[in-house]
């Protein structure tokens, strides 16, 4: 008998929370982006866990799609970052201060 699913879910929730916290608090664009990935991974863990708990493959299929989406998002996101910050030294969101909320 393996570890109960709720443990995994709590872990995933914690990871999601940490990721969300990171996005809200960190100013470094790349790290914000990484926190986004962290959140997606927490979702993946949740889905896989539910897939096991419900004995249903749909959760794993979901993870499969999330992975594709994450890859696409990263490609575009990093392209964006490169095109924005080409020739700059500092990649913090504080550089971007014209638009305030």
């Amino acid at each position, binding site marked *: 008998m393996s570890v109960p699913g709720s443990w995994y*879910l709590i872990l995933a929730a914690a990871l*999601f929370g940490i*990721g*969300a916290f990171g*996005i809200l608090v960190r100013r470094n*664009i790349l790290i*914000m*982006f990484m926190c*986004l990935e962290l*959140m*997606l991974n*927490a*979702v993946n863990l*949740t*889905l896989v*866990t*539910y897939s096991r*708990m*419900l004995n*249903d493959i*749909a*959760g794993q*299929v*979901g993870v499969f*799609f*999330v992975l594709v*989406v994450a890859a*696409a*998002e990263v490609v*575009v*996101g990093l*392209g*964006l*970052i490169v*095109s*924005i910050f080409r020739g700059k030294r500092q990649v913090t*969101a504080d550089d*971007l201060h*014209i*638009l305030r*909320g």
Partner: protein
Amino acid sequence: MRYLFATILSGTPIKFPQISYAAIFPEAILIGVAVTVMLAVALIGRREATYGYTALGVGAALASGIWSYHLSQDVSTHGAKSVIGGSLAVDGFSTFFMILTSIGLIVTLLVAEAYIYKVGSRGPEFVALALLSASGAMLMESAYDLLVLFIGLEILSISLYVMVAFTTSRKLAKESAFKYFILGGFASALFLYGLALTYGATGSTNLAKIALFLSKNTLTSSGVLLAGMVLILAGLGFKVALVPFQFWTPDVYQGAPTTVTGYMSGVVKAAGFAALLRVFYVAFGTLRADWQPILLVISILTLLAGAVLAVVQKDVKRMLAYSSINHAGFILLGLYVATVTSLGDSLYYLFAYTIMSSGTFAVISMIADLEGRTEMSVSLEDLRGLSKRYPKVALSLAVLLLAQAGAPFTIGFLAKFSVLSAVIEAHHYALGIVAMLSVVIAAVLYLRITLSMYSATSDAGGDVETTQSELIPDVSLGAVMVELEIEDDTQAKVDSGIPIAAGVAVFLTLAMTIGLALDANPLVHFAARATLLR
């Protein structure tokens, strides 16, 4: 070889779902033409032939819209159904939104023609991205499974991130592109987590199955489900800019190329709302008692914040961004009320809003182009005297803005009217008054913009200040008259600079704004018929 079939064909044979090509034709044609555009660029290599690419794109959108209409006719005769393994719904709702998306896309592409000419070598990619993104929107609108919805959302969003960042030569644009990207990703993550929790709570991602499960079972603990629901609401709320999640809107609307802003405020919002409406009506329909209070608070906040914050802005695009938040509040009202007819009212509002907003941004983009301003900064000051310089443009903008304000004999009025009637029909009188209050506040904004176009240029504005004690700009007939006459002659032909395609787009939106209000019944009827497959 033997091994291959031992593995693949062992167990039950794979039963592929019946693929209804007719149902996915609207999406497929957009994707196909997008690929064709890119191939054409690669094979022919004429990147400056913007009319050609625009024509291709518009043709695709047109075909997609016409086919969607055909589908909707089919639905009304043969009834709604879900296709391809229950992952897509073909119902009045989805076809309604597909048609709406096609219209929005046509307007966007037409307006973008001037823009992509300016962008030069990357123009065709813009067309392709717009088409792909619209196909994502259509997927979202007809999705009958949360996973399909998610994929559609991402196709839409990711192309949009690129479109927003299309000209990042300016700091403002860069910033808004990135802001949109990170927050969009954040919203997607929230939505996904909501999806995961909903899946855990109901055992399926299919909307019909979720609804079936919820109608048959009483959950011992609905916490996970509620959390999932709230997260889905938050995720989609980000996309359509409901109030606690609205803060990105003004920045992004301002920083993005105006063409894209129009697209975002029209097609994207429509798709987001389509998803929101479908998920909440179909999947969580039985949990109405749980989500209605949340939606009540959100819609009131959205209505008021959108209107109030819009009034204090200086930049026109920011104003319109906030006003779009106000509109979102109205659409949400229809969802909150959740009566039999309110869905149709929300849809009508969305349709009207999409048309008006696309048109408005089309004109703004035209103005920025004509005036040689940067895309990002069209302030009220810049609009001063526009009616002199570009009377037709100014008139179009005035009509569209007034329509947004809810002026009579425009679809804007009918839209507000229909949503309000749903609200009142459900006896939410106070809510109706709040909504009307927000309309009053927002109307001031639209009038301000309109007025600034019809008031004298800033130079004359200085004069007014000096003569304030003296009151009237009147009567000393001769001199003034002569002066005006001269000024007029030099500027009489200025309207001739309007790009043809954009002109057509604006005319289209104007015609719909007025025409669909004067002969209102077809659209009202169409929206009312756009029912959800349950």
